[in-house]
């Protein structure tokens, strides 16, 4: 079965572009428009990787990642963060506390994002993490 990636962004066009690239790379895609919707889907489907925006209504990206990390079944899922203001986030919070695997600052390259997703999936799936 193809690895499953959840993408979360309040910008519908960004969601569509990233889904298009991920599906072309042969991945199964789940989409959420805000952190709260993403958290529901994550609990239901336990995706292999999460790509999330930072500023979103209802529940922001940082809060979403905090929840992912503090719930045992999802604590180890690799997370990629998309953000409009990367320089304003402390690396300590992003990398050490939330263990974000990669940070993409908008505007970003979907090509590079998909390459990173594939690299992270290869890393987690080779040693049979599940």
């Amino acid at each position, binding site marked *: 079965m193809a690895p499953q990636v959840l993408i979360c962004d309040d910008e519908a066009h*960004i969601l569509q*572009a990233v889904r298009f690239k991920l599906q072309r790379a042969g991945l199964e895609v789940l989409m959420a428009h805000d952190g709260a919707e993403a958290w529901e889907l994550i609990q239901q489907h336990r995706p292999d990787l999460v790509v999330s925006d930072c*500023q*979103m*209504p209802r529940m922001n990206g940082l809060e979403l990642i905090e929840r992912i990390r503090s719930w045992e079944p999802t604590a180890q899922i690799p997370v990629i963060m998309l953000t*409009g203001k990367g320089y304003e986030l402390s690396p300590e919070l992003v990398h050490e506390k939330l263990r974000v695997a990669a940070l993409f600052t*908008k*505007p970003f*390259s*979907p090509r590079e994002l998909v390459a990173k997703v594939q690299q992270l999936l290869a890393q987690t799936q080779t040693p049979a993490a599940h």
Partner: protein
Amino acid sequence: MTPLRLRGWISTVALAAPVGVLVLGATGGLLGIPWGLALETLALVAVAAVAWLIWSTTREIQAVRKVLHRLSELAPEHWADLDPQSLGPLSPRWQHRFAPLVEHLKAVGKRLMELEERLAMQHLSPQTSAAEARLESLLESLPVPILVVEHDQVVLLNGAARRAWELQGEDHLPLSLERLGEWLPGLLRQLAKRPVPSSLSTEVELGPQNATRRYKVVASTFAQGMKQLASVVLLDQTALKLTQERHAEFVSAVSHEMKAPLSSIRAYTEILLDGDVEDPQQQEEFLRIIDSQADRLHRLIENLLNLARIEAGVVQVNKKVISINEILQEAVRLLRPTAEEKQIKLQTQLSPMCLRVLGDRDQLLQAVINLVSNAIKYTPSGGTVTVRSRLRDDMVQFEVEDTGVGIAPEDLKRIFDKFYRVRKDSHMASGTGLGLPLARSIIQDLHAGQLRAESYPGQGSIFIATLPPAGKLAAASDEPSSALAAQSS
């Protein structure tokens, strides 16, 4: 010991010694002991000692009386430089007892001399003292904290300075520098190394913990006759710093808002350039997205420029009699795709009357677009945004209501403030902090209307705009003929 107590002591000895000797002598006689001669000798010695004691005490009392007499005759102008030796010979014991009295008299004498000097000055130059009094009241009335330092002591301090440093009634002048903070003596020491006159400045925070104010402190030295003084002036920078911070936040918000459409443009361009899309229909769809996002970016820049122009008072307003319903319909038509994309129902409930206002069509359309897109932005998928119009109390009223996240009371007070953005919490989307201030500027500043908001968190918000109808405005307008012409057309 007081002279009275001394005298009591002496009398006790004087009585006890001979009596003791006599008793001993009598006892010796009764017992048949031959003590008679020895005891009589002893009694004589005791009587002699008592006599000496009485004589020396009397002398001391006389010396003290003389000193007191001299003190009472000493004129007050000599109190300041009173020399205890000059009062006459006194035993060390009495000198010690007189010392506090002498010191007290010296202090009172000094104070008297100062007062006399000041009185003399005022008497000599009444004009100078009047000018000084004027200067003092001028300093006191200044809202800027000012103080003057002489020899590490604050010798002058106005009311604003007392308030800035939270000084209490008991802090009298001259005041030690340390009372005003550790940094001040350091700054003045640095300043003292420079030639007079010189200036130095630094920044400090003063005031109670949760209401500190930031000051730029300027210390300057100056000479007054032979004296060297330093003035310290506090310039309040709190508002300036706050504006700078808001401005930085605003620039950050604007750049973030610009990045959203730019991200889409970049993503779809890359996908198309990479040749990922074979289907011509999909190619066209992606190109349309690029086009709409470029348009969104353009609108944002227009908003920015428009607000800047209105604020600078250089905006071109082209007022005509227009129908508010037409403007509302146009805004809804433009924003329908955005609402549909987010699965939000965008509906209108417009008055059947033709509600005319004298206004700038483009500006009013901009204001309505900002209000409706704000409602769409803060409403989750599945919600509803309603645009209404009506005539109420002879005024044209339109409103934009949403079923969105709502606005907290503390934010509601400030949502129209320029650069104010609702703090990023999990309930809010991003914004520029510009859309609502611009809408309010257009409605209130350019069209003499009113724009207000009501909201209950979790239940949505309603923005209500009121504009004067064209009839009244046309009568008051500079160009009644053009207004009437437009109305009849």
